[in-house]
């Protein structure tokens, strides 16, 4: 009994290995935008498959029929068959029309600029190597984890603060470059609730591979709760708690030069930390947002993310100070 259960579990796990999870598969669309490109991809795939079959079939027929055999004269090559030549010139042209028209149409429909008036607007700013999100109509500023309501149109306006990045959450839509001095748009409405991951898709320096992102598609009520939470100021740590000590350490350390905590510090170089405790990851999606990772991040960020602007502090914070700052940051729900 136990053994058969073991076998069943193993088989299930093996099958799971075949079936994913592939959190960044472009073949599992979860929004109108992603579905538009998916339909286009499947269309073109079948055209390509048909061309492949025809070409390979002709090749195999030629190889078999005209192969060298003892005692048989070489076949006489045909040359100058006008109808054939016209046919194989026209056929690719016709196929290209069937590929080009839907492609150009999809480019226009996914341009992201014509949006319904009730669309939620999100501004994305790419930084080396993290994502800044602003909700101009809601007065929210956050980083790396974008929350959007399910089934509602969302317009994302994308730009960059330094070099060229590319915003890409594969199951929700195609890549779009974040270019300093330009604004590019995508628009989508997500089909289903979920936690969708993505990453920077344009090489942007040392930690390009560590520049991840998440889009959390929430039910309406959950999204509203998140908005209410984010719109408020930062939590005030209780008197004489570890978190309160952490606030004091934060306020007298280099942290304030780069990070904003509303009412505490005005820095704009790094991510806004006003509600950092509410995020599920730290360091642009690299690590779970728990005490251990937060502590090692504060102590020595460059060893976790090569090239990161957040250097080791001089003089370094003591372990006690770090523990206090971690408690403070975690209290900022």
């Amino acid at each position: 009994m136990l053994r058969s259960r073991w076998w069943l579990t193993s088989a299930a796990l093996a099958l799971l290995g075949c079936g994913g999870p592939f959190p960044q598969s472009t073949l599992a669309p979860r929004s109108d935008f992603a579905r538009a490109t998916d339909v286009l991809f499947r269309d073109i795939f079948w055209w390509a498959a048909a061309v492949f079959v025809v070409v390979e079939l002709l090749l195999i027929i030629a190889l078999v029929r005209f192969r060298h055999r003892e005692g048989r004269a070489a076949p006489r090559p045909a040359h100058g068959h006008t109808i054939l030549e016209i046919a194989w010139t026209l056929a690719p042209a016709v196929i290209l029309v069937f590929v080009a028209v839907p492609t150009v149409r999809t480019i226009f429909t996914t341009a992201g600029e014509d949006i319904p008036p009730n669309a939620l607007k999100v501004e994305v700013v790419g930084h080396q190597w993290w994502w800044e999100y602003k909700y101009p109509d809601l007065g929210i500023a956050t980083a790396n984890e974008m929350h959007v309501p399910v089934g509602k149109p969302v317009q994302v306006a994308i730009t960059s603060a330094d070099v060229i990045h590319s915003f890409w959450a594969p199951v929700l839509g195609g890549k779009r470059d974040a270019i300093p001095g330009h604004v590019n748009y995508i628009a989508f409405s997500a089909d289903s609730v979920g936690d969708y991951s993505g990453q920077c898709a344009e090489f942007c320096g040392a930690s390009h591979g560590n520049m991840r992102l998440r889009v959390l598609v929430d039910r309406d009520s959950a999204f509203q709760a998140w908005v209410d939470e984010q719109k408020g100021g930062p939590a005030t740590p209780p008197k004489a708690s570890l978190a309160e000590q952490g606030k004091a350490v934060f306020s007298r350390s280099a942290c304030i030069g780069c990070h904003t905590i509303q009412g505490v510090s005005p820095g704009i170089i790094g991510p806004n930390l006003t509600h950092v405790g509410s995020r599920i990851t730290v360091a642009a999606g690299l690590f779970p947002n728990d005490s251990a990772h937060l502590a090692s991040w504060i102590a020595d960020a460059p060893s976790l993310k090569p090239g990161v602007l957040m250097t080791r502090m001089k003089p370094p914070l003591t372990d006690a100070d770090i523990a206090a700052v971690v408690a403070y940051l975690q209290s900022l729900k």
Partner: protein
Amino acid sequence: MSQRAAPAAPAALAAQMTHGPTGLKAWLTTTDHKRIGLLYFWTAFGFFLIGGIEALMIRAQLAQPNGHLVSAETYNQLFTMHGTTMVFLALMPLSAAFFNYIIPLQIGARDVAFPRLNAFSYWVFLSGGLFLNASWLTGPLFHAGMLNVAPDGGWFGYANLTERQFSPGPNIDFWLLGLQILGIASLAAGFNFIVTILNLRAPGMKMMRLPTFTWMTLVTQFLIITAFPVITVALVFVMFDRFFGTHFYVHQAGATPLLWQHLFWLFGHPEVYILILPAMGIVSEVLPTFSASRCSATRWWCTRASSSGSWAGACGATTCSPWAWGRSPTRCSPRPPCSSRCRPV
């Protein structure tokens, strides 16, 4: 000198040819098209092996999550140098090997039009390749704290990541100067082969009788002399930005980093055909020969016209308007077509 005035007798010529330098010196001083062809071939093969080792290191690093075979910085140098090596140090000189060895034979010429310029092209190419790869070992000269300071901006080197602000080390400088050196070699060879094919054909070898490979070579050389000046200018802009404080790709100064992408792909798309046309030429010679049949379609000249146009296709993710796609690149101002749709943040 009496020798110069009178043409040498065939026997004297033969003696001259057999009594030239021998051994290593012969290879170092040669202006013979076949020997230069072989030099190109084996040098390209050597760089091809280096590029292959780089590719293996990339795959080994990626064989498991969070691999630590090399650091993030070295990894970026590996894929940048892999791409640069394969395009400029392996594939292009491999084509050059075939141009050198075969073209004079196919058109009935004794050598290329400018044999010494031909040798110059090879040695400049070799220096460019050695200069680029020297960056693997010269970190200590720049107090970089590591041995390797190879280029790390991707083989496409997108501005503004290549600006001094974001890439302060000597890495990008190696790339800029290395590509400029290689560009000189390609341009010199390009003109050399155009003159050779147009002027040194044997009597009766009319243009339309040229073998397909020679035609492909001619088209490729025209692509080289039109595409390489564009990348030359684009690289000079980056160099001026890095060394002299200009702002060709700095958006804060009113420019746009997109300018690099337009210039680079105005070079990059013809470059695709520079790489593939000689190979297609070889296939179009080998296939009919071995199947004892003539080639039917000779409509390949269309590719030359379309290759410059396909620059626009690279703009997909940067959201250039699709209307810009049909536009001839020559009519396109240096300001990219998408700039009219820019809005301040």
